[in-house]
Every structure is written in structure tokens, then in C-alpha cells.
């Protein structure tokens, strides 16, 4: 190997048939060359909706985490958060692509991410509000990643091999996310009087949104062996959260859960006011230049 091979920038100037404006500008189908056939006996429409919900959770939350970048207290936290947001964006791309293929209407990840309206999004409401402070960030990330890790742990045995593969990769990433968030919740909760009070207050703000994570899901019910019943995840998630809260000397908040509206919540397309603002930012470039490529 020559010295030139060590220069990451050399390839930018190489003469190729492609345009190489900068590193990482090319986006190709993340499922290129992967068998995306819906397995026999699986309801394709339900599989598409299910993957859409899991993809939307990751897409919206990744965007919220990206909004924190440049606002973190230290460089190490900055890189941590950017990496977590990137992992989730990667999961979102795979899941939205999987949803598009299972749907079979020719929609790709970009169509699904940028050209759906608020009511067509299927994410849980937990990921929508902006964090008011660092304690809310740590608390929401802990709850989200503990729940998603438990969920993906089940999905590694999914009858859809593609969903199982996406979950298998995600489990490794989410373990790091959960552990990172747990460390901060413990540090703040078991820290000073002020950090404890603020961490406890943050949990009080987020907690009403946790009940929805375990709500019965009509789409999952149509996918036996493929999807996980959300209700069955509660014990595993509670065990993790209770252990972290105990170590952090924090109390599990009470208070009423944020109720569904006429029986509908995030998975049915009913969202908090915050989602519209997230989408306005997330989709603005794609909607202003719908034929642009990048």
C-alpha cells in the first residue's frame, strides 16, 4: 500500500464517472441488493405500516437530537449526541425503505420522510416535544432507548428476516444509547440539590408520554410472529427504569398519562402540536425543491 492510500481526501480528486463534491453526499438505496419480498403469510400492508411507525419514531427523534448539536455543554457530549442521532437516522432510513418496499406503491425513503403530512406520520408522541433543558434530554433519551431496546430485542426474532436484521443491528446501537442516557440521569439525579430537583422535574414533564409506548397497537396485532405486542414490553422497560431511578435517588413520577384523542394517539396519526414545527423544518428544503437530487 502506498502513502497515497492513507489520504482520505485523495479519492475526492480521482477521475471518475461520478461527481464527488464532498464526502458522504451520495445517498443510495440503503436496501440495495437485499431481498425485500414480504414473507409468505405476512400481511404486507400491515408490515409497511408497522415499519413506518418504527421508522418515524427514529426519524423525528433523530431530528430533535440534531437540534441539540452545538448546544451541548461539552465536546464529548456533542459527539455522543451526534452519533446517537446518526444511528437513529440510519435506522429510520432502513425502516422507511422497508416500509416503502412492503407497501409496493413505489415510495422510497425520501418520499416517506419529506412528502407526508403531519397526520400521516405514525411516531409515538414521546419523540415530538423539544427538550426544555439537558435533564429533559437525558430523561427522554433514557425512556426512549430503554423502550426501543426492549422492542428491538423482541424483533430480532421477527418472522420478517429483514426487520429482524434491522433490529439485530439496532440492538447494539441502542444499548450504547441507553447506557449513555442512564449515566447522565444518575449523575444529575444523584448530584447536587439543584441537579436533582431539575432531573426530577424533567421526568415529571416526560412521564405522561410513556404510557403510549405500551398501548395496544392494531397494526402489530395483524402481524403475529412479525411484530411485538407493545404491552408485553412494559415489565422489561420498567425494570430498567426503576433500577436507574433508584440509583439516581429519583422518584418514579405519578400523574395521569397523556390520553389518546378519540381513541387515537401517535401510531394512529394524532400528534402533539410540536410535530408540525419539526416537520416544517425537516421537510422545508425537500418541499421547496422537490426535484432536487443530493
Amino acid at each position: 500500500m502506498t502513502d497515497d492510500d492513507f489520504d482520505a481526501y485523495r479519492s475526492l480528486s480521482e477521475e471518475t464517472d461520478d461527481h464527488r463534491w464532498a464526502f458522504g453526499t451520495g445517498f443510495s438505496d440503503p436496501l440495495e441488493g437485499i431481498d425485500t419480498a414480504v414473507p409468505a403469510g405476512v400481511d404486507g400492508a400491515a408490515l409497511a405500516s408497522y415499519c413506518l411507525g418504527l421508522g418515524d419514531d427514529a426519524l423525528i427523534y433523530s431530528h430533535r437530537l440534531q437540534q441539540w448539536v452545538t448546544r451541548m455543554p461539552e465536546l464529548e457530549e456533542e459527539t455522543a449526541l451526534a452519533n446517537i442521532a446518526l444511528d437513529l437516522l440510519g435506522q429510520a432510513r432502513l425502516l422507511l425503505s422497508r416500509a416503502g418496499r412492503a407497501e409496493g406503491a413505489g415510495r422510497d425513503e425520501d418520499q416517506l420522510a419529506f412528502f407526508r403530512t403531519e397526520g400521516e406520520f405514525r411516531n409515538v408522541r414521546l419523540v415530538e416535544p423539544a427538550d426544555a433543558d439537558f435533564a429533559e434530554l437525558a430523561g427522554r433519551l433514557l425512556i426512549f432507548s430503554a423502550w426501543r431496546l426492549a422492542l428491538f430485542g423482541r424483533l430480532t426474532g421477527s418472522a420478517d428476516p429483514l426487520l429482524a436484521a434491522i433490529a439485530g443491528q439496532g440492538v447494539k446501537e441502542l444499548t450504547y444509547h441507553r447506557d449513555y442516557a442512564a449515566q447522565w440521569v444518575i449523575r444529575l439525579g444523584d448530584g447536587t440539590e439543584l441537579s436533582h430537583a431539575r432531573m426530577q422535574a424533567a421526568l415529571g414533564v416526560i412521564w405522561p408520554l410513556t404510557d403510549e409506548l405500551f398501548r395496544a397497537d392494531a397494526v402489530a396485532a395483524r402481524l403475529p410472529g412479525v411484530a411485538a405486542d407493545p404491552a408485553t414490553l412494559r415489565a422489561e422497560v420498567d425494570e430498567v427504569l426503576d433500577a436507574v431511578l433508584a440509583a439516581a435517588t429519583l422518584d418514579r413520577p405519578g400523574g395521569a398519562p397523556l390520553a389518546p384523542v378519540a381513541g387515537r394517539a401517535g401510531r394512529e396519526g394524532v400528534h402533539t402540536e410540536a410535530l408540525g414545527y419539526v416537520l416544517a423544518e425537516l421537510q422545508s428544503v425537500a418541499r421547496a425543491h422537490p426535484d432536487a437530487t443530493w
Partner: protein
Amino acid sequence: MVTRRAGAGVADGPEMVTREAGDRVAAGLELAREIAAAVPDPEMPMMTLADLGILRHVTAQDGHVVVTITPTYSGCPALTEMARDLRYRLGQAGFADVIVRTELAPAWSSDQITPEGREKLRSAGLAPPGPRPRGRDARGPVPLTLATARREPVACLRCGSRDTEQTAPFGPTACTALFRCGTCREPFEYVKDI
């Protein structure tokens, strides 16, 4: 423009049945495999795709070379760049219209980094990963003590001391974490065990 080198094609239609052509296919694939294996990782250019263990297969299909790679992380931004580099380098050697495929299962693990790859990481100042954590779905219990890592202590690359601590679980790229040596006080990067 891509320059084509004679004899490097992997198949030539009906000729495939002849022994000579069959040998040529095998020789072509061997060359394609060597080229693909030597493609550098865009984020850690001292490592090749083979060193990282992300090159899964190099096969032939309908006269085209098919290269299968696996992502290290779901959001790895380097994957597109790797596919482009594979097509370009193989194209330079005369393999036209190379197909690059992604394989998600089984998911990549840092255990797949080769011994040569670990040596290269070490010489570049990156601590190679320890064995991937095992147990229930590779998920452990959530760590409840601050700064307590689930893994074996990581040895400092400079002084060899095992008195090291993780300063951040995420580094400048998705696959590294930040560490600091308690003896020589130097910070270093550790390739995460996943």
C-alpha cells in the same frame, strides 16, 4: 473514462462452458476479490474493507462482479462512499458495471476485525476492540455506577497501563469511544466492541 483491461472479465456468455473460460472466470474473480479487499475505509483509511471484516462476498452473476458488504452501524455514512470506491477501483481494472450489495444479517461485529486490522489500528494509535459482550441478546444490565464500563479494562497504547477510564462512550466516528490513561494521562480512542 474507465479503461478496460483485456482478460479481466468474469464471464463471456456461452464461452463460460469451456474450461479455458471457466479458468478465466476464476482468475478474474480472484483479481476482483483482491481489489475489493484492498479498498480503504473512508473514515479509517489505514484499514481496508477486508481488515474491518465488512467485505462479505465477491461473486459473479451474469458476467458482472457482485461485491457484498455489510454496514458497521445503521447510519454509517461511509457505506455509500465504499460502494462508489468499489465500483471505481474495479472499473479501473476492467470490471464493468460492478454490483455492490448490502447484507444486514448477521450484523457486523467488531470481532470480525482481522488480526492484521487490529495491528494496523494499534499502529495508528487506536486501541483495538476487546471481545464483543455476550449474554442476553448481547444486551447487558444497564450500568448503574458512574464510569463503570461493562468490559475488561482497556490497556493504554502508549504505556500499556490498564489504569484507563472511558471519558466518553462516543468518539469522532460512530465506531470509536474516548479513553484516558490514568498513568501517562494521555487520551486515546478505542474502537468500540459491538
